[in-house]
């Protein structure tokens, strides 16, 4: 059970959305981290056979996924980034329809839909129209849809985008729960979404995967360390200019900053444990998402 990507490339007119990506995935949760436009969606669409690669191959247990066709799609669950649905269908009808095109018999589909709806906490709204659900509920319905066929490969494209902190935590837990005995590939540009649940992090930048490892290894691979220091407000500009700053907080005595540096930036700086977010900052040179977007 192995999804293998070799030298996968996708060109759009003048951009290389995905550039010579190679990697191998088995069971477990994979966090695909990258800033906007890194090529995450394009990579995932190719993995879902929705877009044909310009070059390179994707194989499942040695077989080309585009040649496998339906046999491969049977193993697949996909939640697209801009997840669309039939606005006038009820949640339940929507799920039964998706189940039918996934080739699940009606009786089994009903049972499966009920179980999953309960698991994600949507049992109460199953007879509501899709368009009447909140953003978070729609995403959950999206997860249920992807899980209907008990997929071996679950691909979730930014499933937490636009969710409030509570929903996001729920989602993280849900994904952990669902990740047993399958391959889950989850894209995000919010580090905390995958920091604790991913077995492996894939850092994607400008179409290429620059780093792929466990969160721990990725953190220890970073040459810079994280420091916490308290500086007078007047000196803040100096640090912002010369260091990668991962956090700034105003306190009565001045500002508390968290910065990345190989050397101790000043005598009072306290060494802190580096987190995945610091690595993200280190590699991408900027911090993605506003501070209030984080948990």
């Amino acid at each position: 059970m192995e999804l293998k990507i070799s030298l996968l490339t996708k060109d759009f007119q003048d951009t290389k959305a995905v550039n010579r990506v190679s990697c191998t995935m088995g069971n477990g949760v994979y966090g695909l981290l990258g800033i906007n436009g890194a090529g995450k969606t394009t990579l995932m669409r190719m993995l879902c056979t929705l877009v044909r690669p310009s070059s390179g191959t994707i194989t499942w247990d040695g077989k080309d996924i585009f040649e496998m066709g339906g046999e491969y799609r049977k193993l697949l669950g996909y939640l697209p980034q801009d997840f669309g649905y039939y606005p006038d269908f009820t949640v339940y009808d929507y799920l039964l329809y998706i189940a039918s095109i996934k080739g699940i018999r009606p009786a089994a589909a009903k049972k499966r839909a009920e179980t999953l709806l309960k698991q994600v906490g949507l049992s109460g709204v199953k007879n509501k129209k899709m368009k009447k659900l909140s953003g978070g509920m729609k995403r959950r319905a999206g997860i249920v849809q992807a899980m209907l066929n008990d997929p071996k490969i679950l691909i979730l494209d930014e499933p937490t985008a636009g969710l409030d902190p509570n929903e996001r935590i729920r989602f993280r837990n849900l994904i952990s729960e669902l990740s047993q005995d399958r391959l889950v590939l989850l894209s995000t540009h919010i580090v905390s979404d995958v920091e604790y649940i991913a077995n492996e992090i894939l850092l994607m930048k400008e179409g290429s995967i620059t780093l792929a490892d466990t969160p721990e290894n990725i953190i220890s691979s970073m040459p810079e360390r994280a420091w916490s220091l308290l500086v007078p407000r007047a000196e803040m500009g100096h640090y912002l200019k010369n260091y990668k700053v991962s956090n700034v907080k105003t306190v009565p005595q001045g500002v508390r900053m968290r910065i990345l540096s190989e050397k101790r930036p000043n005598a009072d700086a306290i060494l802190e444990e580096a987190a995945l977010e610091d690595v993200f900052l280190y590699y991408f040179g900027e911090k993605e998402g506003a501070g209030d977007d984080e948990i």
Partner: protein
Amino acid sequence: MMKYEIKKVFSRTGSKFAILLLLVVLGITCWLAAGVTYVNNSGVTETGFSAVRQLRSVKKEWAGLLDEEKIRAVIEENGRIASTPEAQSNDYRQNDIAYSWKQGFSDIRDLLNYAYADGFREYNYYKADSLTTDDAKNFYQNRIVLLQSWLDEEAKDQFSDAEKSYLLNRYEALDTPFIYDYSEGWHRLFQYSPTIIMITMLILGYLVAGVFSGEFQWKSDAVFFTSFYGRNKAVTAKIKAGFYIVTAVYWVTVFLYSCIVFLYLGIDGAGCPIQADMAGWKSFYNITLWQEYLLIVAGGYLGCLFMAFLTMLVSAKTRSTVIAVIVPFALIFLPSFIGGMEGPVISKVLGVLPDRLLQVSNALSYFELYRFGGKIVGAVPVLLIMYGILAIILLPMIYYEYSRKQIS
């Protein structure tokens, strides 16, 4: 699967309005078709069901074999009424009274105007009044004579010799004398059939236009195409849904329309040839009224299927519901664009454009002929066979187009 596809179509608010609109149009068309009038003995025009009953009863008096004897009787009776003071009067109310006496044989009187016209394409309402009983024997023969002289003179460049002899042949093959009967139900049904069929077709086009493009507009395409059946059975289900929607909506509409008109006006005259009425007098198709009915509803159905499938193909190809909706409108109005041009080729092309399928009742009276392997046939069988085949050819094209779609 298919059940949900149909549900997708009808869950749109626009679709519900479209069905409502169809019902309104159906109601109006039935009302128009049922608008029979009868002028009573005091010259007053009556409407409603009692008018139908009275008209039917006076026309029934003239029903039966339309032989020389009956033609003579009509000429005689018509002449008698024409010389009454009521008919001669300058007061239109008196004229109306005279007209009321003619209603029973008014259909036959119309035939006389055609049969004894000064030319094949002439029409003179008062021609019948100038006939004498001696003319009666030429009634059927005149139909052929007029065609013959028209083909020899005016239309001599319009048809090949083979076509001319084909037309004459068809005229001569008509079984005469034929039977005349009250057949208002059929004629009024035929008269408004193009309206109701065309509206049904446009509404069907609107309903099925989103079957394929909808997935892209709803952004549900990604999930659709990554599902197990997304590139095979689910596509077939969409095509089937389109087929069933066309079939159900079309036949329910036709059934309601026919039932209402027939219940109101009666189905008398089903076995009469279409030539027993002025609308079909010149037709070279030797068929009866119920056969014409079958051709009309079958043609309408094929036309609706063809247009709906073409709309669906455009919907799958362009991913745009708006462009797809335009297709049926374009096909209906296309003939009026090229209709401005003239020439034998244009007329041949016009004769087999799909809009003709929606108005078989009119197509039956056009002189459009086609040649296949030395055999000459009229436009109507060509239309039925050609669009039947085209509709079937469209199916694999739609399937091929959609099952290979990529996400962009």
